[in-house]
C-alpha cells in the first residue's frame, strides 16, 4: 500500500469511520463522567462491533484490519473522551500478539477480541519510549522467574492479563495473569481519570506456555506494538483536539462580553485559527504514523517526528481552548477541561515533545560533528 492509497480510505475503513462516529457521537458527557474510568457496557458494545478484534485475524474472531482502521477508532475514542483501555488492550497488546507465533498468543488474541479478557501492555508502548528499566527475567528450567517494577501501566480493575516485556537474561514478552503469585498491582488514576496501575513483581514464576516470544521475534512484535501505540495515541489526540475545537467554537458563539459575541473578537478568532492549523498538522502526522505501522519497514524516525509534532499541537490546542473558555474553562463542570486533561495524558504517553525529539537531536549531533 502506498501513502496515497492509505489516504484514500477503503470502503471498509469508511464504514468503520461512520459507525464509530455515530456510536461515539451518541455518548453523552454525563455518561462518560458517570462511568468513572470504565464502562463494562461500553466495552461490551465495542466487543459486539468487533472493534476489540480489529487487528486480530479472522481465525481469532477478529476483523483482520490494519493500523489505518485502528487509528480511526482511536480517533473516535478521543472525540468522546472515553476512558476505556481500548488502545492498550485492543491495539497495543493485541497488535503485539498478532506478530507472535504460537497458540498462547492466538488464544489470548481471541479472548481480547471477544471482550473476555482485557490485556495491558506492561513495559512497552504505553508510555512510548519509557526510560524506566524493564523487570528482569531469568530462566528456571523452562519457566521464567521475574522480578522488578513497571511504574505505569494502563490497567484497571477489569484488566485480567498483562503483556510484560522482560529484560535481563531473558528478554522477551510474557503473559502475566493478574493473580500470579508475587505480583502486586497497585491502582491509581490518570490525570484524565482513567485507570492506571503500578506493578511490582517479586520472583514471579511464569511457566513455559506463558512465554509469548523471545529475542528477535519478540523485538519485532514489540516494535510493531510501539508503532501502533504512537499511531493510536496520535489519532486519539487528533480526535480529542477536533472536539476541543468544536466545543470552543460553540462556546465563543454562545457567550457575550462587552455586549458582543465572543466569536466577534478578532484576537479570539485568530487563536481559534491557530488551533485549526495545529490540528491539521497533527492530523497529517497521525495519518503518517498510521501508515508507518504497516507501510514502512523501519518507521522509527518518522514516528518520532509524528509524536513530537502531535505533542506540540496537543499542548497548544489544549491550553488555547481553556484560554478561550475563560473562567468557565477553569471548571470541571465544562467538558473542555476533560479534553485538556486527556491531551495532557496523551502527551505524557507519547513521551512529551521534548522526549520525542531527543533521539533525532542526537542523530543530528552525530551528523553535524562528522
Amino acid at each position, binding site marked *: 500500500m502506498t501513502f496515497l492509497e492509505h489516504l484514500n480510505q477503503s470502503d471498509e475503513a469508511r464504514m468503520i469511520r461512520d459507525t464509530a462516529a455515530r456510536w461515539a457521537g451518541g455518548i453523552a458527557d454525563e455518561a462518560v463522567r458517570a462511568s468513572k474510568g470504565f464502562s463494562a457496557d461500553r466495552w461490551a458494545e465495542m466487543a459486539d462491533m468487533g472493534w476489540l478484534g480489529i487487528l486480530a485475524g479472522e481465525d481469532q474472531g477478529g476483523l483482520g484490519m490494519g493500523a489505518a482502521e485502528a487509528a480511526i477508532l482511536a480517533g473516535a475514542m478521543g472525540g468522546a473522551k472515553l476512558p476505556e483501555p481500548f488502545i492498550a488492550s485492543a491495539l497495543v497488546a493485541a497488535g503485539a500478539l498478532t506478530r507472535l507465533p504460537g497458540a498462547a498468543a492466538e488464544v489470548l488474541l481471541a479472548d481480547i477480541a471477544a471482550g473476555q479478557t482485557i490485556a495491558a501492555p506492561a513495559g512497552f508502548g504505553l508510555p512510548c519510549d519509557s526510560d524506566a528499566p524493564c523487570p528482569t527475567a531469568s530462566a528456571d528450567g523452562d519457566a521464567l522467574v521475574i522480578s522488578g517494577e513497571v511504574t505505569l501501566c494502563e490497567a484497571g480493575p477489569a484488566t485480567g492479563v498483562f503483556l510484560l516485556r522482560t529484560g535481563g537474561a531473558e528478554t522477551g514478552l510474557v503473559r502475566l495473569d493478574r493473580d500470579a503469585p508475587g505480583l502486586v498491582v497497585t491502582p*491509581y488514576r490518570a490525570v484524565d481519570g482513567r485507570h492506571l496501575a503500578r506493578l511490582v513483581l517479586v520472583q514471579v514464576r511464569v511457566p513455559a506456555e506463558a512465554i509469548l516470544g523471545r529475542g528477535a521475534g519478540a523485538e519485532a512484535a514489540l516494535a510493531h506494538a510501539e508503532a501502533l501505540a504512537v499511531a493510536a495515541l496520535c489519532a486519539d489526540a487528533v480526535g480529542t483536539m477536533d472536539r476541543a475545537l468544536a466545543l470552543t467554537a460553540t462556546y465563543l458563539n454562545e457567550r457575550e*462580553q462587552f455586549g458582543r459575541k465572543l466569536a466577534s473578537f478578532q484576537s479570539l478568532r485568530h487563536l481559534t485559527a491557530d488551533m485549526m492549523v495545529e490540528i491539521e498538522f497533527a492530523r497529517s502526522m497521525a495519518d503518517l504514523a498510521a501508515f508507518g505501522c504497516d507501510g514502512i519497514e523501519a518507521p522509527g524516525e518518522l514516528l518520532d517526528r509524528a509524536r513530537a509534532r502531535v505533542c506540540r499541537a496537543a499542548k497548544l490546542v489544549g491550553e488555547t481552548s481553556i484560554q478561550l473558555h475563560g473562567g468557565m474553562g*477553569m471548571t470541571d463542570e465544562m467538558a473542555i477541561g476533560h479534553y485538556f486533561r486527556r491531551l495532557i495524558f496523551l502527551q505524557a504517553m507519547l513521551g512529551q515533545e521534548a522526549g520525542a525529539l531527543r533521539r533525532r537531536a542526537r542523530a543530528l549531533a552525530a551528523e553535524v560533528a562528522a
Partner: protein
Amino acid sequence: MKDGPKPGQADHIDLLLDDDLRAFRRDVRAFLGAAVPPETRERVDNGYAATKPEIVAFLKILATRGWVAPGWSREHGGPGWTQLQRFVFNLELARSGAPTVPPFGTSMVGPVLYTFGSAEQKARYLPGILSGEDFWCQGFSEPGAGSDLASLRTRAEDRGDHYLLNGQKIWTSKAQYADRIFLLARTDEGERKQHGISFFVLDMETPGIEVKPIISIDMNHSLNEVFFTDVKIPRDGLVGERGKGWDYAKFLLGNERTGITNVGRCRNQIERLKRLARARGLGSDGAFLTELARVEADLTAMEITEIRLLSAGPGAPSALTGPSILKLQSAQIQQTLQAMIVTALGPMAAARGGEFLSAFEDLDGLPPGFFDGAVGEYLFGRAASIYGGTNQIQRDILAKMALDGRA
C-alpha cells in the same frame, strides 16, 4: 558588597539593594525560616494550595511582627514599608514556602475601607484583617460577565433601613473559608453601565447567602459560586458613596495588579526544575538547559521591571502600562515554568490523585507529591492568563495607550 551573594550565584537581588534593604531582607528571611512548618513548606513548594488552618496559623505568627498587611501605612496599623520592602518581603515569603496569604482582606478590601470607609467601618473591620482573624472573599465577577465587570446584574435594592440583595457571584475564591465578603451590586440604573454600582461589605453568616463549590480543572475546590436570595445588608454595609462602587473597584484592582508577578514562586520553580533535572538526568539535555537559562533571564527582567515600576511611583507614565505588562509577562513566565516542569516529568505527568500519592514512596528519588502537585499547578495555572483580566484584556489596555494615546 560584602553582604551580597557571590558573583555568579543565582540570586541577584542583593546586588541591587542598599545595605538597609539587605539587612531587612536578612531579618525577614530569618523570621520566616522559623515561622513556616516544614510540612507546610513542602506542600506549598510542591504546588498545593495551603489549607485554611495552615493559613490561619501562619497569619497568627505574622501578626506578632505586624506583618499581615505589608502594604499598609503605619497610620492604618501596617508596617509602613516602602514598595521595595514589600517586593523583598514577597520574595522571601515565597522562598520560605509560606502559605499564599489571600489578598482579599489585606490588599483588596482593606485599602478600600481605610481610604473610603467610615470611621465605624474602619474600627469594625480593620483590626480583624490586621490580626489575620477575619477571612474575606471577593464578590465581583458574575456569570456571563467575565472580564466585563460593568455588566454585573446583582442588585441591592434600597429598603430604607437596609439594602435587599439578590443575585449571584462566581469565581469567589476561598468563599468556603470566608467570614466576610465585599461585593459590587447595582443600586441604581446609570446612563453608562459603570454608573449606579455600589460597594458593600457583609458577613458571610447573613441569612440568604449560599456558597456552592466550583470544582476546578485541577479537581480541587478553591472557587465558588455565591448566591444571594433576599439578603439584608445593613445600611452601614455600604462603603463610601452610593453609586461609586465602580471607582472603588478600579482603585482596588489597581492595588491587586502590583502584587501578582509571583516572582518569588517563579524562583522556587526554577530551583524545582533543577532538582527535577538532577533526578531525571536532564543534565545533558542542552535544549532543556537553554530553555531554563532563557526563563531565568526572563525572570530577572521581570524582577527588574517590577522594581523599576515600583520605584517610579504611581505618578510615572509607566504606572499606566506597568500593571498590564507585568500581568502579561508574569502569566507567561509562570505558565512556562509550570509547563516545563510537567514536560520534564516525562510519562509520569500522566498520573494524579490520592491513590497515586500512596502508590509510590518516591519516583526517581522525588516524592510523588512533586509530580502530582506539579500537574495540579499546571492545570490551575491556566488561570494566570484569565483571572484579573485575561491576556487579551491586558493587550487591549496596552494597545489603547500605544495607539489611541489614552488609558
